[in-house]
């Protein structure tokens, strides 16, 4: 009796494995160039397919530039260039923008692109029901009107130097298309293949594309919630490229292996030790500066990212036009920190609570901050909060003394001009400069003003900018043409080729 049963088990197990290995998916290694399927691994699955309706970072990553296009394109280097706009003019008072739309563009459904589509697309983002994070940046729009066959005129209530840049983040959609949350109708080089929720999303090359055709036939985004599963997928060739690697430990697997290439791009994600500037003791500039000088950010960065990433002395990342190196403003100097603390009236230090998001790398950073500040007599009590609690307690109710948080967006130094923002930094001069910068007549003027803002908040130590995350993309060595910076979570896939 034993023997036949054992045989049976052996048979079943064997059968499963044989069947299974037959089905083992091989990436399309043999496909001719131009016909390849590219696998992209990511931790950011779209919530739905609408970036103005809660699609989140995942919708931007998979669809911006690939399925949907804007009037302008933000390139991977941070330049803004014409895309669906052929050209545009601005009135001398800076309040009227006239866009000429490219001729011969059709949506994937076959409908031609019209000025009404453009007007509809911008209104979708500025509408009251929109949950788009871009909504606030476009609230100076007074009216949008299509005129003629190829012209759109937008009137603003106040000057907005970033208007064209902000438009690069607005998808142009077919105004006749009803449901954008589960289907698409864009103008990009790919159309949506299938979206298998929880697992993958595929893009198929659109042969009726108006511009240069995509260099590959198909792209499949595969989504993971577990970093080691993502690494395994790259190691087994199930994906060719991994966007925005968030697991520093995993780098060791690929570092030095000639089969893979690690690119260290420029990110816009800053990790902040954000003080509540309204509340003692952080309402005192000297206290904030002392804390900033007491923390060895280089050591922190090395221990978390093992040499990747960079230090910043202010809120402005290097890809923003108004960046300057401000790491010297509050240098790491424990003696200086002690003196500043004594001068501020806290020679024996104090105790404060640090609200710390529960997800990586915040808990590690909190422990590091705690041990660094102990050196100057400050006791840190770490209070773990979920992302959700953080929004309610810190962000909305301003009920905190200090917190850790990552800020992902580019060009977001402007928040220091808003005294109502969660960190409560209230400097009328900065607020004025931020406002003037947005209403500036030229980019040079805007840049000069925001550079001043960056320096001023550093001198005030409005927050402590711990470090700038690295932007790491890992690809198989046979794959090239992918973006390395991925600004604003974009990931253009149309130039990716596989040898």
């Amino acid at each position, binding site marked *: 009796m034993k023997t036949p049963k054992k045989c049976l088990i052996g048979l*079943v197990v064997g059968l499963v494995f044989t069947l*299974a290995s037959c089905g083992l998916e091989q990436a399309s290694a043999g496909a001719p160039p131009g016909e390849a399927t590219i696998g992209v691994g990511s931790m950011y699955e779209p919530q739905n397919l609408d970036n103005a309706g809660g699609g989140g970072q995942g919708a931007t990553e998979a669809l911006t530039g690939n399925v949907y296009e804007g009037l302008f394109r933000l390139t991977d280097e941070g330049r803004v260039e014409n895309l669906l706009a052929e050209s545009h003019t601005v009135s001398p008072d800076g309040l009227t923008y006239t866009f000429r739309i490219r001729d011969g563009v059709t949506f994937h459904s076959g409908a031609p692109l019209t000025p009404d589509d453009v007007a509809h697309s911008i209104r979708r983002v500025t509408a009251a029901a929109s949950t788009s994070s871009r909504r606030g940046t476009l609230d100076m729009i007074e009216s949008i009107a299509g005129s003629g066959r190829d012209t759109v005129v937008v009137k603003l209530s106040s000057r907005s130097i970033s208007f064209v840049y902000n438009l690069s983040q607005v998808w142009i959609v077919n105004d006749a298309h009803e449901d954008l949350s589960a289907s698409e109708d864009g103008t990009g080089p790919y159309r949506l293949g299938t979206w298998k929720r929880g697992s993958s999303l595929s893009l198929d090359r659109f042969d009726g594309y108006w511009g240069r055709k995509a260099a590959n036939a198909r792209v499949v985004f595969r989504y993971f*919630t577990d970093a080691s599963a993502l690494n395994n997928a790259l190691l087994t060739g199930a994906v060719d490229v991994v966007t925005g690697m968030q697991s520093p430990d995993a780098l060791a697997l690929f570092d030095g292996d000639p089969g893979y290439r690690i690119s260290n791009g420029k990110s816009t994600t800053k990790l902040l030790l954000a003080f509540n500037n309204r509340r003692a003791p952080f309402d005192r500039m000297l206290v904030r500066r002392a804390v900033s000088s007491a923390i060895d950010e280089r050591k922190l960065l090395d221990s978390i990212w093992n040499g990747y990433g960079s230090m910043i002395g202010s809120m402005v990342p290097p890809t923003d036009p108004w960046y300057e190196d401000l790491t010297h403003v509050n240098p790491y100097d424990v003696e200086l920190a002690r003196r500043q603390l004594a001068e501020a009236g806290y020679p024996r230090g104090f105790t404060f609570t640090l609200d710390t998001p529960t997800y990586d790398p915040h808990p590690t950073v909190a422990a590091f901050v705690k041990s660094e500040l102990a050196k100057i007599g400050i006791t840190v009590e770490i209070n773990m909060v979920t992302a959700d609690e953080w*929004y309610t307690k810190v962000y909305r109710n301003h009920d905190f003394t200090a917190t850790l948080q990552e800020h992902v967006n580019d060009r977001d130094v402007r928040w220091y001009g808003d005294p109502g923002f969660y960190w409560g930094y209230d400097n009328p001069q900065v607020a004025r400069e931020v406002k003037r910068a947005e209403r500036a007549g030229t980019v040079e003027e805007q840049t000069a003003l925001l550079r001043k803002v960056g320096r001023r908040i550093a001198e005030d130590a409005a927050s402590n900018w711990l470090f700038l995350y690295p932007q790491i993309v890992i690809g198989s060595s046979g794959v090239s043409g992918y973006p390395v910076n991925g600004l604003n979570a974009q990931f253009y896939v149309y130039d990716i080729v596989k040898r």
Partner: protein
Amino acid sequence: MLPYLLRRTLLLAASLLLASAVLFVLLRLLPGDPANALLSVGATPEQIAAVRREIGSDRPLTEQFLSWLGRMAVLDLGTSFVSDLPVGPEISARLVVTVPLTLLAFTVSLLVAVPVGFVAAHRPRSWYGALLNGVSQLGVAVPVFWIGMLLATVFSLHLRWLPAGGFPQDDWADPAGALASLALPVATVALVMSASLIRYVRSAALDVLDSDYLRTARALGCSLPGAMWRHGLRNAAVPVVSVLGLELATTFLGAVVVESVFALPGLGSMLVRAFAQHDYPVIQGVLVVGTLAVLLAGLLADTAQRIIDPRLRDTAGGGRW
């Protein structure tokens, strides 16, 4: 039998209702507001208020519960807070992963646990009896995700036999691919499950081996396998079947972990994600479906037990429950 089934079905409906209510209240006790998960940095108070109005989190709890119950009665599980897409269709799309995963793991673990359990019971003090016992204890102690990662490292990264994760885009239209994707997850869950199942089978078999009727059967000239087959198996099955219903629930829990490790688009990964986002309609939908499955499995196990064991049927004229 029929009145019994009827009573049990009513009881099942009542349990489901009670479970839904408990679930609903417990979810609302979690700190935080789902509206926060929907909005990005820079959202105005008006935007937050508008979102809360839209998803109904500003209404009284009883009102929210009753309207949810009402919709559930017509099999409408509502719309996700986060994606604004209906919950029901997504659950059915994910069942094509979780149901095969659970059933396959369940079957494999039965196929492993029954013979191994009997062998381990046959000579409990022999070296293989002790070994099997030890291995099954170890299996109970080791966490599921660790076994999953270990199997992925061996069979995917080193041997390259099986994919390390994911599921074919066109589901079961590619049966070999789908089976390949499920092979390691199934093996993972089955390993953990059979480890505990072996222990139940072993102790049930030990009881049977010690029994008078088996000794009598042997005395009458039956071989041990023959006596086990005719008299032992059925008696040993009674306690084992009763734990099977519970084991099915454990398999589902295992699937939650395993689906993350192997990037499978099943109910488990859907649940994990929904929890992270406070997406109440999705959490409720998945848990109600899961509760229903567990209750059904319990009903099935109890019914099977009555079929196997006539003593249960005959007590008190038709049986109590």
